[in-house]
């Protein structure tokens, strides 16, 4: 159990760093894919296979493919030349990174993490379904519908932009 966690954690850490340090944009997308795989692996390790599978379909199977397609359609090899960073931008980036790191380290040190091992069995799919579409306490019908309307609006907006006049 522990060994697998450390392997996944190492993959996440190494690939995250490679994602931002690599010069080629498609490689960055591939490293990001590995990060998302390893995250899904951690969900599976926690016995929450539903979230793991959602992670795989939505992020690995959806978002990354979207990224790759947009890279295909927009980038040329000339874009991959070294771009000079301006001093102001560099300072702003460093400041943001430091602030982000400070917040993360503060949270990790002050928050008491609960169980470190999977608790109980796999969550039943029917339980997740009832929670998503129920109206009681700790049930999520309203957010579910709101997200549905948002996505529909997104689709209609996309069609409106893309249609032929």
């Amino acid at each position, binding site marked *: 159990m522990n060994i697998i966690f450390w392997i996944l954690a190492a993959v996440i850490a190494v690939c995250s760093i490679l994602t931002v340090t690599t010069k080629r944009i498609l490689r960055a997308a591939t490293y990001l894919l590995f990060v998302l795989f390893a995250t899904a692996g951690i969900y599976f390790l926690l016995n929450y296979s539903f979230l793991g*599978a*959602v992670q795989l379909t939505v992020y690995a199977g959806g978002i990354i*493919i979207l990224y790759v397609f947009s890279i295909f359609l927009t980038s040329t090899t000339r874009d991959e030349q070294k771009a000079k960073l301006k001093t102001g931008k560099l300072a702003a980036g460093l400041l943001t990174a430091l602030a982000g790191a400070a917040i993360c380290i503060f949270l990790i040190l002050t928050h008491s993490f609960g169980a470190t091992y999977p608790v109980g069995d796999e969550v039943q799919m029917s339980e997740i379904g009832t929670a998503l579409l129920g109206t009681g306490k700790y049930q999520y019908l309203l957010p579910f519908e709101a997200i549905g309307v948002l996505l529909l609006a997104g689709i209609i907006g996309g069609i409106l932009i893309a249609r032929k006049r």
Partner: protein
Amino acid sequence: MFDFSVVTKWVDDLLNGILSPTWATFIEFVLIGVCILTAYAVIALALIYIERKVCAFFQCRLGPNRVGPFGLLQSVADMFKMLIKEIIDIKHNDKFLFNLAPYVVIAASVLAFGCIPFGKGLHILDFNIGIFFLIAVSSIGVVGILLAGWSSNNKYSLIGAMRSGAQMISYELSIGLSILTIVIFAGSMQLSTIVESQANGWFLFRGHIPALIAFLVYLVAGTAETNRGPFDLPEADSELTAGYHTEYSGMHFGFFYLAEYLNLFIVAAVASTLFLGGWMPLHIPGWDGFNQIMDYIPSPLWFLGKTAVMIFIMMWFKWTFPRLRIDQLLRLEWKYLLPINLINLVLMVIIVVFKIHF
């Protein structure tokens, strides 16, 4: 009916008896890995042979007939040829992505292969959300194809990869929705539960009209998902030489080749599991004697038999229909299959709610 979980349990107890739990688990991982990869390779070789024979008979030829009796060893010989071929380095490409892409494709297909129930108790990954996991991992393969097309630095490969990406993403919707129809009917996503609930009749018969529509849609979408003819325009040899794997050689090409055949097997196996009862024998409620006789046939044989029928139908498609154009392909999915599927989903819900099924 023999339950294979007896065997797996025996192996598990044996290993746990003589080793510490960590090592026992580790050895089980290795054992399962070896079994699954062997099955993967053997099934792929068998499928390549079958495809060549079926293709030959459709074209009034004999097919492979020199190596071994009836040419049975032809694909084994081909495998050795592939294994000892040189992997050619090509210039001006992204070496890392170029070498990575075949592994992404094959990993996705091995993961999906691991979910399939081969017989009673003969099941590697049996998640609560089994079928959803299967769709999730099989959608990763498309990333490998896109990477292969891009990193080959060849415009034909890139066009092939783009076509393949567009095709697989679109037809995944149809596959997902037709599987969802059956999930509604079964009330579960776990593959073992889905198979067991077909003990009194296969879903294709019990779910009558909506199940039949879902089955037909699944067949069309599944054929498209495997990039096979009549939907083989990602690798249309007359236009794009070989599409996304043009630049690959040796075993890297072999990986694409194996994954293509195994995806055919996976699509057929999922069709037989969801619609034709998987390893469940043909049972007719009321005919007890008949059911007993059917139970004597081992469950893996049922599974492989049904899958073989599905594979034959898909090969039949490939060697009879002419290739579609890309606009026809996308129109078929977005204007016909998807609306049919959505209406079919509502129909299935009505049938389940009012219990108008067998």
